[in-house]
């Protein structure tokens, strides 16, 4: 038996190819949306992987440092270092802000790290694609290449200017913002640095406060003002464990003795994926559902129209004894063929378009396979309306009168 669907497609291939192309663009958008979600998850994992930490010590009862703000004294790292199982510790600050690249603003996550450590300290960029790590205590920066900075460029953060001495890759925040690493002290200052007017106003208010400006206590006012101008807090202490140390045990020990909140790698991954990007994931899920419905509607409409165009032929086929299942198979095969054409176009479109998106789009083979079968199911379901209509066609319509 010949394939009626195949012959019809070959006969009106232009209609199928153009319809498939339009459907393919829609499928391409769907694949990219799935890729955006995968990219967000991968960004989160890359953030954790590249931090080089086994444990994250943060302010008690917070989900810091990525999902919530967290504040710890910057001398805590020493006592944590003394805990059993801990190999290295490092203070770190995170601040998402607009940094200046000439006249342009670049959204980035500014990370404060302790300079001068041995290569591979927690919090440091694990590899560089150009230049060197930060060695000086002030005004040097290592930037992710996604920021667009080049070696020797100047970055303006608050009132200070930093020289780019190194470039790294794939160092992004959980929301995909590229990172800029600067010395810890500079980052601590940048977190609370105010403009001159604000500083002057703050000093004036402090001087006017009789609690701080006591005639009988000389030096108190200066001490208070000095404390207001410095920041001795960090967002987290990153901990690397000794070989063989159990993360859960060390984390429990720090929680118990230091009264801090500690997250292991799996817990931090749960926070990033389960909480931080959960809303975005739901948003993308909604888009995927809408796109699936729109795709189904388009396929249903096209197949319905193509079937309507063949009503007389279907009546003739039924009159000359064609089985209903042969006619149903013809329509369903056409819908599936449309889906296959659409998926091929969509996959190619998504593959070429993904690198052009500002955020990381990760197209995973298993998503494509799942997408392919979803398209086939949608097309099969979408053909049901046309099949029902075709099966209702009266063979008598082929005979006049």
């Amino acid at each position, binding site marked *: 038996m010949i394939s009626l669907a195949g012959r019809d497609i070959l006969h009106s291939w232009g209609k199928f190819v153009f319809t498939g192309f339009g459907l393919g663009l829609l499928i391409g958008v769907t694949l990219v949306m799935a890729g955006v979600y995968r990219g967000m998850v991968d960004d989160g994992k890359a953030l954790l992987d590249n931090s080089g930490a086994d444990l994250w010590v943060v302010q008690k009862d917070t989900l810091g440092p990525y999902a919530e703000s967290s504040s710890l004294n910057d001398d805590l790292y020493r006592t944590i270092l003394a805990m059993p199982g801990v190999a290295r510790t490092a203070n770190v600050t995170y601040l998402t802000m607009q940094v200046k690249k000439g006249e342009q603003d670049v959204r980035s996550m500014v990370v404060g790290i302790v300079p001068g450590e041995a290569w591979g300290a927690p919090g440091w960029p694990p590899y560089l694609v150009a230049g060197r790590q930060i060695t000086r205590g002030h005004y040097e920066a290592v930037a992710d290449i996604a920021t667009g900075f080049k070696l020797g460029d100047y970055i303006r953060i608050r009132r200070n200017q930093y020289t780019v001495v190194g470039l790294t890759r794939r160092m992004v925040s959980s929301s995909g913002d590229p990172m800029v690493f600067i010395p810890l002290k500079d980052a601590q200052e940048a977190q609370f640095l105010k403009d001159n007017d604000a500083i002057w106003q703050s000093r004036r208010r402090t001087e006017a406060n009789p609690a701080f400006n006591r005639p009988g206590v000389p030096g108190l006012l200066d001490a208070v003002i000095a404390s207001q101008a410095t920041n001795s807090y960090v967002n987290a202490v990153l901990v690397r464990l000794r070989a063989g140390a159990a993360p859960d045990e060390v984390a429990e020990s720090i929680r118990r003795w230091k009264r801090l909140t500690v997250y292991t790698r799996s817990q931090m991954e749960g926070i990033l994926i389960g909480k931080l990007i959960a809303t975005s994931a739901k948003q993308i899920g909604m888009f995927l559902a809408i796109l699936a419905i729109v795709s189904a509607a388009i396929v249903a409409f096209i197949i319905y129209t193509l079937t309507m165009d063949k009503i007389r032929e279907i009546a003739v086929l039924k009159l000359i*004894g064609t089985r209903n299942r042969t006619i149903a198979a013809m329509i369903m095969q056409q819908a599936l063929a449309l889906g296959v054409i659409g998926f091929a176009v969509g996959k190619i479109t998504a593959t070429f378009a993904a690198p052009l998106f500002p955020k990381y789009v990760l197209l995973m083979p298993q998503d494509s396979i799942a997408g392919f079968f979803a398209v086939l199911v949608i097309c099969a379901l979408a053909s049901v309306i046309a099949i029902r209509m075709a099966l209702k066609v009266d063979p008598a319509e082929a*005979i006049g*009168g």
Partner: protein
Amino acid sequence: MAEKGIHIEGLSKRYGEGDTAVLALKNVNMHVAPGEVVGLIGPSGSGKSTLLKSLGAVIDPTAGRMTLGDEVIYDEGWKVPDLRALRRDKIGFVFQAPYLIPFLDVTDNVALLPMLAGVPNAEARQRALDLLTALDVQHRAKAMPSQLSGGEQQRVAIARGLVNRPPVILADEPTAPLDSERAMAVIRILNDMAKKYETAIIVVTHDEKIIPTFKRIYHIRDGVTHEEAGEGRGFQ
């Protein structure tokens, strides 16, 4: 003993119920022998199409009996269980417009019926080519329907009607879209094929040109038929 060809006795068809009921066919009798071509003529609304649909096993008559060769098709409310297979294997159709399947070439348009009946593709195509040769359109065997002239399309449609060697062919205004010369050619082909394949052919027509070619004619008016001898010119 059953008569060969197609035979109907007391065939009636009623549409609707109660006060709105319309009796489209009233006690129709008809017999067409194998190899015979008869005309069925009547004005619009006379019941031609209803009779053709009943003969074609597309609609069920309300009453009466119909046999096709030895096989009883309808008998006072009883009917053959698989009318679709009956239409495929025992009844050929030729329409006013050829209604060829536009996405199949000429050979496959004709070969489709035997393929649907389970005949292997190669054998079905050979059978189609033999018929196309008999109808002198074998040179267009690979052409698509849209590439054929009106006469060629109608000959292909006749080949499709004949390909399963049905004992009866129902032709619904087969010459309506054709000029006189081509119309006569089609009627000549139908007569030749009827004789060659021992097929009973019923031609529904309004076409004054071809009416004199029938040896027997059934007139139908208000659902009632009466038979008369035709002139039978040209195809003795």
